[in-house]
Each structure stands twice: as C-alpha cells, then as structure tokens.
C-alpha cells in the first residue's frame, strides 16, 4: 500500500466516521429539541423535517406581524365550510350560550368551558393576516382568550408536547406543538373586528395560529387534547391535513 492510497483510506475513513457521528448527533439533537414533525415519514419527509427544524430553531418565540387598524380588510373572505352538523345547529338558536370547549388529556384538571367562561379570562386582541395556502389573504382584528392562559388554568403536564384540537366540521382536526400552543398570539378567538366572531369566519369559537397558514386555524372549536405523542391520533401524522396530503406544519 503506497502513501497516497493509505492517506486516502485514512481520510475517507475519518470523513465517514465524522459523517456518521454527525448524523447520529443531529438525530439525537432533533429528537431532544422537538425538531421532527409528525409527518416526517414518506417521500416528502426530508423536506418537511428541514423546514420544521429550521423554523423551530429560527422562529420559536418570534411574533406574527401585526398591522395598523387602517389595514383591516374591508372585504375579508370567509372561505367554504362544511354544512353545520346537528350539534352546531342545536346550539345556534340560543346564540351558542351552551357551546362548550372541553380541555382534556395531560392536564391536572380537565375543563369544560362556556364562551362566557372564556370571556371572563383576560382578553387579548391582535390585527393579523389570514393567509390561505391557495394564495389569497385578508387582515382582521381577532379578539379572544390566549390559549396559554387556558392551558395554565388547567395545569399542563411538563411532559406535554402537543395540543390537538377539534371543531364540529366532520373529519377536521389539527394539532400544534407546545411552542405554538404557549405562544402569546395563539388565540381562542370569539370576536372579530369589534363584534362577535361571525359563523362564516369560524364563530362562535375558532383557534387562531397566526404564524401558520389559515388551515391551522380550525373553525367551530369544541375540544382541546394535550398529549405527549400524536401517534395514536388519526393516522399518526399529526392532523387531518397530512391525511389529505397537506403538511402538518403550515408555517412554511
């Protein structure tokens, strides 16, 4: 074996070892810091993982852009919704006085909150943009109760990693990681532009996740489940979006 091939062998060996060690370390770091999205498997898993990991490292605490009142859209677009289900129709005549949001899962005390319960908590408002993955957008003022306040009230387990949430639209559910769940702008929204939240925009209760695309902001919210794993929720991909072919993480 001559000097050059020995040198090559040593270099290649060192590079391969360094690569393996690097990959193992990266994987361990990614697991530890929650950089792997629930829809990380499959053909588009690598791209999704890179996007989610990069965003979690870059934007964990950043705030969605807020706009001046003058920029509130004169003609917001409500988008299509599924026909209301029986529960929704039964609660609507009474102006949703009996609407309940249940909070369950890895919490010290489960809760069932009415709209007035929510409104008795400190209110928050934000003028943020709804951006649909199709390309359109509008700005509105959203008024509600920060999710973090509700989670603090029920005492979330320190092992919690996600909050899954459900509305009355059939088959539609989603989830966010604790970074987004505890984010000050994640809002249980019951008001819009100085009025009640209109039904076409998700009234009486909609979750707003302003750092992600519109489809994460599920309308007609009825249930929150705090969990440490999304494996047993639906097909285990994190929400109904990946089951329909859309990314779980919609912050892009």
């Amino acid at each position: 074996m001559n000097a050059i091939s020995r040198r090559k062998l040593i270099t290649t060996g060192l590079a391969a070892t360094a690569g393996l060690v690097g990959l193992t370390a990266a994987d361990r770091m990614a697991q530890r810091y929650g950089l792997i999205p629930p829809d990380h498997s499959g053909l588009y898993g690598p791209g999704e993982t890179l996007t989610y990991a990069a965003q979690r490292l870059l934007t964990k605490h950043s705030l969605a852009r807020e706009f001046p009142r003058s920029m509130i859209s004169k003609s917001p677009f409500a988008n299509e919704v599924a026909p209301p289900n029986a529960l929704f129709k039964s609660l609507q005549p009474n102006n949703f006085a009996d609407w309940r949001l249940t909070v369950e899962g890895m919490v010290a005390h489960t809760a069932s909150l009415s709209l007035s319960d929510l409104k008795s908590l400190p209110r928050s408002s934000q003028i943020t943009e709804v951006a649909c993955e199709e390309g359109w957008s509008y700005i509105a003022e959203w008024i509600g109760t920060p999710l973090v306040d509700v989670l603090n009230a029920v005492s979330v387990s320190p092992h919690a990693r996600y909050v899954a949430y459900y509305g009355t639209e059939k088959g539609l559910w989603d989830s966010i990681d604790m970074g987004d769940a505890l984010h000050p702008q994640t809002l249980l929204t019951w008001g819009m532009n100085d009025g009640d939240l209109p039904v076409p925009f998700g009234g009486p209760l909609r979750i707003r996740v302003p750092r992600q695309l519109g489809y994460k902001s599920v309308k007609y919210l009825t249930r929150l489940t705090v969990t440490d794993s999304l494996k047993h929720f639906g097909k285990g991909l994190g929400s109904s979006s990946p089951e329909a072919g859309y990314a779980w993480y919609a912050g892009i």
Partner: protein
Amino acid sequence: MPCYSPHVSATGSPRNPDTPRHTALVRVTHWITVLAFFALLLSGLEILISHPRFYWGETGNVMTTPLFTLHIPSSRDMVPTGYGFVMPDQNGWSRYLHFQAAWLLVLTGLVYAIYILWTGHLRQNLLPAPADRSWRASRAVITKYLRREPPAPSEAHSYNVLQRIAYLGVLFVLFPLVIWTGLALSPSFDSAVPFAVNILGGRQSARTLHFFVTDALVLFLIVHVAMVILSGFRTRMRAMITGRTTASPATAPAAIASPSIASQERA
C-alpha cells in the same frame, strides 16, 4: 473596425485535452439544479392554479380587485375564472414537493457557491475578463451571434462575456430573488424577519414578484436550451454529462486539441 477580435484570455488558452470541460462538481450540481427547478416549476404551477389571480400590497382575495388575472381554469370552485369547470386539486403534494425541491436547490446552490469561490471558478470563468468589461465587447458578441459566426477557439473552454453576464444574473440576481420572494411567503419566516416581506410591499406583492422572477428564470431556461441546441446539442450535453467534449477521448487525444474541433464547442 467592423471585425470582432477574440480576446485571448488565460482561461481560453489550450488546455490538456483530458481536462474536463466542466468539473464533476459543476456537472452534478447542474443536473441536481435541473431536477429541482423542474420540480419547483411543476409544483409551482399546480399551486398557482388554485388561485390564478395576482394582487399588489399586503392582502388580496376574490372579494378584492386583482392586479391581473391569468386566464386559466382554477382548481378551486370559488375563484371566478370564466371557465365552467374546476381543475383537479393537486395542491397538497405540490406544496410538499415545492418545499422539498426548494431545499434541494438551496443546499445545492450553497455547495456550488462555496465551490466557485473556493476554486476561483467564479473569478476565472464567470466574472467577465477585464478586457471584456465594456459595452463594445458585449456588442461584438451579439454581432457574432447575429451573423452566426463560429465561436473563437478560446470559447471552447470558456464562456464569452454575454454568457458570463447571463449566468451571473441567474446566480446572483434571479436565484436570490426567487428564494427571497418565496421565503417572504412563509408566515413563520416573516414573524422572525418582517422586513423581508415588508420591503417588497407586502405578502401579495411578494407572491406577484415570486411569479415574475419565475418567469424570468423560465425565459433564461428557454434561451439557454436554445443556445445549447444551436451550438451542437450532442457535444454540449456530452460536456455537461461526462465532462468531455469529444465522443472517445482515450482513442483520439491528438484530435481534441486541434482548433477545428475545438471551435465547434460553445457552451
């Protein structure tokens, strides 16, 4: 002085015939970029047809006046297109593919950028030679192209000034712009770097600019492929795939250096 006098630059000097026309790294990154670009173009088109309307400013939707509308059918039924039918909705996997291909393109571009700075490829083969940094030099190349004159021998192993300007424009203007306008469409990225979208005039302006920069890249692609075909498709493709400018370099090494064959080569 109507005649074009070819500049003999250091990079155009006769080289060892075994030296590849394009290095392995340039060839590999070129074809990965081709793959990623077509994936981005196809998926981008699929995303576009879900809302083929463009706006200027921060917001825009079917209730507001568009800047312009593409007269193509949409994959969503609430977009007024004038067509009586709705295209199949392929937005889901198209978006997954778009971002994965974007990562591939950006990471490949990063490797390429480090390479061209590290090896001097940028300075030697992409930045115009000092003698070519004039309108006169560019005009001379245009004249040559229009007269369909054969390329100078020096061009067999290097790029002329117009090619260099075009490649530099794609590398340092269009690609950065398309990445920037694309990132500006990420609500999460904008939360961390709000000026990225604000200085473009808002979210809808960024989307419209993303479309225009893509158009410019497609225009480059059309001209690029046309020039490859006009200057000898087989030799040019061989050079970018195998690195070699002739079919069998091992059997006829002497012929490669001859100007008659070399003069057929043009990137």
